[in-house]
């Protein structure tokens, strides 16, 4: 049996994907190279976002080098790699968090479909980007406000005034985050009165309340105990089919459990990107193999 490896280690995806006939605004199919690695059972090959030649600088230091990767819509993509490989840096490019630090510079593009907007372009307002793309951080960081106000904040910022509407959306978000039953009787309590795992779910609810197109998770469970971790992984698995998720994790087993696609990065470069089952049973690159089997010294 001929086993083909599908790697995206070439500098650029060969050729642009074909646009639909209606003028190029439809969500494109992924290019052929990447398709070959897709599991046959995956009917959803719609691309939500594509990084093209993304390079990033902290001042003079090049932290990311020429990344080309596609994120599938409503699927979970995991970014793994050793410390300092740039996975968190890459993640933060999606919602322009680097703009808060002076001296940072983007080159290349991250295109968001279906509007084909370049997320990292200077002309694109970072606030606008952050309205569409949400983030959950490593250490749970709820506001020192009530649970209700925590979840409502994103809605208020968007100008939602009606208290009834806000109440509905808050409940919906808390249900999606599997937290509603635990807090519905104490919505006025401070967000800080919850346990670590609950706080993180509160942060997830807060991010979900605004219906983001992409939800970014930056090592969401590294500060939590195993049971809280398992609940959040379950939550992420449930979010599949609803939201496009990109998750950075240094726990490989977590990436293996939770994601549909996994990207392995090293020293700011993309080494391998493939279906999670393929990458963890038969990776194409030796570097990937060494990392996931624990052969790094």
């Amino acid at each position: 049996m001929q086993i083909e490896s599908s790697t995206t280690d070439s500098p650029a995806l060969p050729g642009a994907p074909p646009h639909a006939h209606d003028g190029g605004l439809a969500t494109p199919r992924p290019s052929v190279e990447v398709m070959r690695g897709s599991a046959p059972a995956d009917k959803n090959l719609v691309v939500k976002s594509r990084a093209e030649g993304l390079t990033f600088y902290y001042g003079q230091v090049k932290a990311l080098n020429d990344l080309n990767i596609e994120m599938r819509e409503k699927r979970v993509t995991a970014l793994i790699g050793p410390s300092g490989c740039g996975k968190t840096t890459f993640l933060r490019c999606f919602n322009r968090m680097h703009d808060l630090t002076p001296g940072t510079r983007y080159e290349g593009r991250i295109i968001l479909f279906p509007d084909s907007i370049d997320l990292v372009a200077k002309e694109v307002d970072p606030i606008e980007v952050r309205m569409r793309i949400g983030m959950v951080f490593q250490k749970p960081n709820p506001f020192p406000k009530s649970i209700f106000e925590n979840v409502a904040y994103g809605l208020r910022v968007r100008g939602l005034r009606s208290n009834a509407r806000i109440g509905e959306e808050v409940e919906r978000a808390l249900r999606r985050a599997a937290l509603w039953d635990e807090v519905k009787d104490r919505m006025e309590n401070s967000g800080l009165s919850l346990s670590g795992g609950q706080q993180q779910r509160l942060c997830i609810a807060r991010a979900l309340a605004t219906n983001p197109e992409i939800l970014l998770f930056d090592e969401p469970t590294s500060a939590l105990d195993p049971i809280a971790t398992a609940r959040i992984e379950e939550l992420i698995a449930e979010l599949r089919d609803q939201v496009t998720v990109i998750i950075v994790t240094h726990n490989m087993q977590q990436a293996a459990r939770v994601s549909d696609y996994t990207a392995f990065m090293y020293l700011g470069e993309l080494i391998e990107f493939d279906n999670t089952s393929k990458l963890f049973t038969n990776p194409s690159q030796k570097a990937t193999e060494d990392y996931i089997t624990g052969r790094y010294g």
Partner: protein
Amino acid sequence: MTEPSEGHTFKAYDGALSDLRLRAHAMGVLVAVQVKTAVRALLESDREAAELVLVHEQQINAYQTEIEAEIFSLLARQAPVASDLRMVLAVSRAVTDLERAGDEAKKIARFGLVSAARMTGGPTRVMHKPLRNMAELASESMRVAVDALDRGDARIAQEVARLDREIDQEFEAALRQLMTVAMERTRLLRSMFDTVFALKSLERIGDHAKNVAEHVVFLVSGADVRHATAPERAAPAKGTQH
């Protein structure tokens, strides 16, 4: 960020994996030896050789038990992935085949015991050559397969497939020869049945060796070729690019 090292960062894991390979190899080599000893016991009605085979058969079973237990523990504790996982699964499957091959050798040795007891002289002279040939081939085939497993070399697995085809041919030829003999000398029917069974066992051993070779292909590339057609097997499988 340090360079990738030769073994796993967790050295005990490394040790466990290579220990597994060593034991599987030792088991396989023992099985290969058993085949030849068993056939010798049959052909020469050698009681001692037959009993030796029976004793070593217990050793083979013990190997299986130990290796399976080790694999169980490794899977639970180390959660191997990628090539490590494939290796562990390949060894697990191969050990099953090795144990069964060992059983077949035991059956052959038993025939030897019976014929020694009855002092009937075993298989007719004319069948000695085919039996010896097949024993050589089966034993060789097993040894090659087990080497391939130890080294993780899928190309050698091709060699095993070739040997297995020879075994099958020898089997067919031996059966035809036996039928000719049977028609001429019906008195020797009992020993002929034994011969047929011995031939069948040898053919089976060849099959088990081929199975082991298929597990080696899995180990290297993750491809399951156990039920694949010949052309699919023919192309060399590509594994991790180095």
